[in-house]
């Protein structure tokens, strides 16, 4: 894999992403390419559901390597992230040595690697092959843990008092994601290559729908992408529909044998896009199912007219 990284080009990275069904643009690819080449952690920010975590999965598949995930949460500490001693196993060993007169054990016997419980960070450092380390939702942790983390990300080595210093055999590909719930420290940001992923444009979202769900017709994909885009921009929602929710909505519409959007279908399936009582009320009050369908019809008609200018192919709205 190290050789693969050395000779990697942006064109190859693009092909790898396309093969995994991840629709990307030049900015995204160049940023990932730089993080890989400079061997720096990649910090990805953006709203929930725009495909931040997916990048780590795609990289792990593309390089055929292990994805090690550290899911951050409030109160996460080194024990959960780095390593723990297998206390119970150590006790059993001591107990067994007591029962067997001939077996005399020393401290080194119970503080050896076989009694070490590897947690994601140590696992990534000790991996035989360069792994992808995903540190998900880093903004959910405390500042103390963040400070500890960026020390590790600088040196890629860990000191275990009983064993000594463990140095990374291969510097892992580190992906950090954040929903921007909390301001991350400048120290962490400075050490990373930064990528911000926004909600996609209508065209990009159509592309995503068509790639992930090939059964969706061009017309349905266009209408869905337009509707979701309209919801994101015309309403002030507590939780805007993400790409993942767009895909769920598409799948459910296909399951209902829909070829195009109509008000009954939208009404029945709106719960897949809006998952908050206030958002649902705001939708009903400010836009409504008919309002959304009318907006989609109008927007797609404009787009189709533009299509007709370029070709005579059918793309009726």
């Amino acid at each position, binding site marked *: 894999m190290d050789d693969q990284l050395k000779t990697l080009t*942006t064109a190859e990275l693009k092909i790898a992403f396309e093969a995994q069904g991840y629709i990307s643009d*030049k*900015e995204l690819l*160049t*940023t990932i*390419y*730089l*993080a890989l*080449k*400079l061997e*720096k952690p990649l*910090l990805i*920010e953006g709203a929930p559901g725009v495909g931040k975590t997916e990048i780590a999965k795609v990289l792990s598949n593309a390089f055929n390597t292990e994805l090690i995930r550290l899911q951050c949460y*409030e*109160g996460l*500490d*080194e*024990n959960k992230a780095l390593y723990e001693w297998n*206390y*119970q196993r150590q*006790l*059993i060993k001591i*107990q067994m040595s007591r029962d067997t007169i001939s077996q005399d054990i020393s401290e080194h016997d119970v503080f050896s690697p076989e009694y070490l419980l590897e947690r994601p960070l140590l696992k990534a450092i000790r991996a035989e092959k360069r792994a992808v380390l995903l540190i998900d939702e880093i903004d959910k942790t*405390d*500042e*103390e843990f963040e400070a500890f983390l960026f020390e590790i990300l600088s040196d890629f080595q860990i000191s275990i008092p009983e064993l000594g210093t463990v140095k990374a055999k291969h510097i892992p590909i580190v992906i950090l994601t954040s929903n*921007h*719930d*909390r*301001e991350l420290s*400048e120290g962490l*940001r*400075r050490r*990373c*290559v*930064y*990528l*911000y992923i926004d909600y996609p444009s209508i065209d990009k979202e159509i592309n995503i729908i068509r790639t992930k769900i090939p059964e969706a017709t061009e017309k349905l994909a266009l209408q869905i992408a337009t509707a979701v885009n309209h919801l994101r921009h015309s309403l*002030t*929602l*507590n939780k805007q529909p993400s790409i993942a929710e767009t895909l769920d909505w598409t799948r459910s519409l296909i399951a209902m044998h829909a070829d195009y959007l109509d008000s009954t279908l939208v009404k029945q399936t709106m719960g897949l896009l809006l998952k908050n009582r*206030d958002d649902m009320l*705001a939708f009903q009050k*400010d836009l409504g199912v008919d309002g959304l369908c009318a907006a989609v019809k109008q927007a797609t008609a404009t787009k189709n007219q533009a299509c007709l200018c370029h070709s005579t192919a059918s793309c009726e709205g």
Partner: protein
Amino acid sequence: MNSLADNIVGFIQILRQLGVRISTAETIDAVDSLTIIDNFDQDEFRAALKSTLVKHAEDQTAFNQAFNLFFVPPEAKQEQQAAWDSKQQLDLEQTKQAEEELVFQGRPLEIPDDLKDVYKQLPEQEKQRLQDFLEKTSTGNNVKESFQPVVENLLKSSLSFWQRQLSPEDLAQLAAARRQLLGHDELDHVVDSAAGLGGTGGNPLLYKNMQDIAEHEIPQVTALIKRLASRLTTRISRRFRMTGRRKLIDIRKSIRRNMRYGGIMISLKYKTKKIHKPNIVVVCDVSASMTKYVRFTLPLLFGLSSVAKNIESFIFATDLEKVTDYFRYGADFAQVTEKLIANSSQMGQGTNLFVALSSLEEKHKQLLTPSTLLFIISDANTLAPLETASQLSIISKKVKRVLWLNTQPKERWPQNSALPLFAKYCAMFECYSLAHLTKILSLNLTRQS
């Protein structure tokens, strides 16, 4: 600006002038990244600089503006240079004219540069009025040279009045005009143009001064505030302090549990500290000077009350009034506002924060606990500032933290002599737009800075 390295360094200087924090390590990263990518592809070049230099989403617009202005063909650069030169010339002429006009008996008056900039922005009619005043004073009977400081003070007062009338946007423009330039024409014109284009981006409502919010924008503002306020509740549900790296072993439970193994501690039981949720008390100024912000403050009260359970809301002008019951969960904002305005006796009155804080301490002392976060939303224009500061000092010792959201732009803070007194006992934040509120709520407010 011939080599690539010169250009990169120049570009980084521009970004720093625009408020983007870039360290030397990041500069080195940017240069390293350019050795890896195809420099002739503009999109790759842009992405390389962006990903290594810009580490905050909100700085991306400033980056894009500066990039589009700086990395242009030589012909476009020449045009920009010519426009910059003529702008500089115009500014120089205006300054010279102002210096010629602001004279007393033929001698130039000593007026600070920021007030001179205010003078340059005045309407012609007002400029003429000031000139007439200076001329009449200069030629008055028995007016001697020693009279000059008095005239200067009068003029400064008048210009300060006009400065206070300026909107925050105008003030920001003036501050930008006074920005220390880099002394390099090619860089300075990019800084000036990019700053003029605004480096905000995103939802324009976020950056709008809340005194200019229109009626139809209120639902949007309320929804945005509710979304922001939910961040606060996430934040405050965190522990005040770490309980230690490891969880504490619960000895009693561990012994009881391990009796079955003959007392050998095979299965340890742990205990953790209870998570404290601080109580929130919001005290909001609804006096006459704050009425223009009522479209911001009331949705803010409403938003906080909708997402946080343990919150007590108060409004004040000449005295304190509890309004928690108006903001029950699920209530409609329009109805709440209507009811509140109809029933409240505080709306649009004078301001006495001292009385309000005293009432809070006397009548609601049970709310002021070490886990309380006290928010004060006010422009800090109050009667009895000394007494207010002393009352604030008493309260600040009883609560976890006092957070003051000041609706006055930071540029105006030096004009309020009471502010340093208040700032000793609270953390004061500039907060007249949703962007400010977003920034404040992304901080860890429960922690003393």
